[in-house]
């Protein structure tokens, strides 16, 4: 029996199989301030944190129809921070009661020559973008409010233009597999943001 295609096997990043629980929503630009205010009140008491990241998505086209996707992300405003390589599996089609999108997740911190390495391995860059926004945390939940910028000249992160007049809001938790109580906590938190932004489970396959 030939080896099963790479994309169908669950990719494990070590000993523990980590899953990412995700809820997404969006707000228009003019509502950003009120959303930030509300998040500052609800989330842990810290100084507000902003980020500016550059993400590149690499594909490895194998014999199968669906290519293998890896995401390489680097921080543009913090020098010395390692690059971050991420693999996100297919969303688990579980019961409808699960409130958040659950998918397998592998996170690796790498050095700066990641892109060369991936190129050597055979990956090709599919697209890239710049994300700029705010970062909050509440316990183990991470809330990101950011704007996606399209890079006009490939490789040059200075020439960017905003993709839309809105901000993307993501509520995510990385936890070991099997802890469904996490999704209940996420739902409760999302309820508190209700009138400002509606966070819900968005299946990426349906958007294609």
């Amino acid at each position, binding site marked *: 029996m030939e080896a099963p295609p790479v994309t169908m096997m669950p990719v494990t990043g070590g000993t523990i199989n980590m899953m990412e629980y995700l809820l997404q929503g969006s707000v228009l630009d003019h509502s950003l301030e009120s959303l930030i205010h509300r998040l500052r009140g609800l989330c842990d008491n810290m100084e507000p944190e902003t980020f500016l990241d550059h993400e590149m998505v690499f594909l490895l086209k194998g014999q199968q129809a669906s290519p293998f996707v890896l995401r390489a992300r680097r921080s543009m405003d913090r020098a010395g921070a390692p690059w971050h390589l991420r693999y996100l599996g297919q969303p688990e089609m579980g019961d409808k009661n699960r409130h958040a999108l659950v998918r397998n997740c592998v996170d690796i911190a790498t050095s700066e020559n990641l892109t060369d390495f991936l190129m050597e391995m055979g990956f090709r860059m599919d697209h890239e973008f710049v994300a700029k926004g705010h970062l909050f945390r509440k316990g183990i939940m991470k809330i990101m409010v*950011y704007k996606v910028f399209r890079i006009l000249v490939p490789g040059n992160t200075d020439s960017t233009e905003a993709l839309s007049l809105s901000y993307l809001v993501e509520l995510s938790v990385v936890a070991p597999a099997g802890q469904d109580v996490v999704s209940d906590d996420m739902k409760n938190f999302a309820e508190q943001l209700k009138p400002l932004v509606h966070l819900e489970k968005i299946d990426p396959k349906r958007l294609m």
Partner: protein
Amino acid sequence: MSGVRAVRISIESACEKQVHEVGLDGTETYLPPLSMSQNLARLAQRIDFSQGSGSEEEEAAGTEGDAQDWPGAGSSADQDDEEGVVKFQPSLWPWDSVRNNLRSALTEMCVLYDVLSIVRDKKFMTLDPVSQDALPPKQNPQTLQLISKKKSLAGAAQILLKGAERLTKSVTENQENKLQRDFNSELLRLRQHWKLRKVGDKILGDLSYRSAGSLFPHHGTFEVIKNTDLDLDKKIPEDYCPLDVQIPSDLEGSAYIKVSIQKQAPDIGDLGTVNLFKRPLPKSKPGSPHWQTKLEAAQNVLLCKEIFAQLSREAVQIKSQIPHIVVKNQIISQPFPNLQLSISLCHSSNDKKSQKSTTEKQCPEDHLYVLEHNLHLLIREFHKQTLSSIMMPHPASAPFGHKRMRLSGPQAFDKNEINSLQSSEGLLEKIIKQAKHIFLRSRAAATIDSLASRIEDPQIQAHWSNINDVYESSVKVLITSQGYEQICKSIQLQLNIGVEQIRVVHRDGRVITLSYQEQELQDFLLSQFVMDLKVAARLWFSFLVTNVKTFQKVMFYKITNGVIFVDHSKKFSGIKWKVETLFIKWSCLCLHLALVYYDFFQMFPKEVSRNFDLKCLQINYKYKEEITSKGVLFLKTIIRKCLFSTLKLFTL
């Protein structure tokens, strides 16, 4: 009309001519009738020019008199006044009066015209209206307006006053009847202190430290309920509050962490039964409502639980030389041999049953409040660390974690480097170190105090520094002799009391490390006492003995600085005072030394043998309990030895 003869009527004007004169023969001479012009003149004369001005001249000229009559009449009136001036002039022109009147009218008109033209220029004459009093008919509309305004203003003022009165009434009502606050205002007050959220139709709150960085899995939610068991007929009780909080059942009551150091219990089977004493609840602020105290107490219980959970987890996981024992709600460890540190979580619920059962055997002095406070501080430090910005991921998609830990992969840290990153000391280790230090410090203080109370000469002084570290304290010890403080400055010791050892820094630069044993410190300090004596003794060389008086059994030696009175003593009866034969100074010195040593070492009857390095005075002695003749021998040997050594010193 027929039949009637027309009668001829002849009409004649009765123009009978005026008779001018009747002649003697009866003939009448008639005046000729007036001609047309004469008639006109006569009529013109009848115009009264002054009638328009309202003069009251009679129309005397209205008579059909002659034109001559007029001037004649006028002149006849003034005839008396103007004699011969005006003569009757019948031949006056009949239009004369008219002409005169017209001329006066013209004059008047000219004058008026002149005046008006001058006034028009406004240079030399102006017209001013004459101020007149307000005419009565014009005053009526103004007063009417005033009165109507007053009335309307009064009406508006009335409405405003009514409203203000209502407001003041409600404010005073609020202040008087605080008990009748409603649920919403109380909820607002609650919201100012605690995080609340509405879930369905319930109001839940969060009293855990999770938003402050804690990772304890307790949910810490409390529920806010409306207090509706109010009987309106009865009197409202003093502490009535329309709002009530329901805290989780395991957080009820009050709790604290008890840290105590005891001598090791000989029987280890007694564990698990911690003697609690019901510590009185911390006084809440006088104005705070009852839900505030309830919630604060529950939060404190939660924090104590977290501290104890963290400590017990570390006690089980971390390997140490002497394993820690965790039993029920107590953690026991051994910082020093023969010493036991016990940390226990004392959680007392508010039931009346348990209040009766707590017998206060354990004395509260055993409890180290400082360490309990430090435990609270340490756990809060730990909380703050999870919230610090070094834990936030950059790039944003990375997981939470310490910044340097994420670098350990790309930069290939080895195990040692990773271990150095993680804080190696947990809560338990830190507390044990602090407890060790506190114990060592208190014991050092006790040693110094006991020495000070037992030994009168020389004296020991200890100056403790106020500002210390959790792991280190320092004290400066001075050993002086009375009367020689200025000179005996050489014995100054700086003791740095650490966690497990005491480091002594001598004035001359020597550094000695003592272990935690109590005896070592005592011995060392005693040796320092002797050093001081040596220094004091050396000074004797410089003192001159002025005279020596010897009485029968009492002797005293007078020296420059004072008198040393040597009392009669049985002990020294056996010694022969060979004062005259020996060098006086030396023997005095030796004697004094001997006396002091004797007194000094008398305090330590149990010491068997001591070796003191005194550099110039080497004394090996054996001190025994019987102090009769053997004491004399001892003194003899001492004196001999002193003599030899002082000789040496003197020559040097």
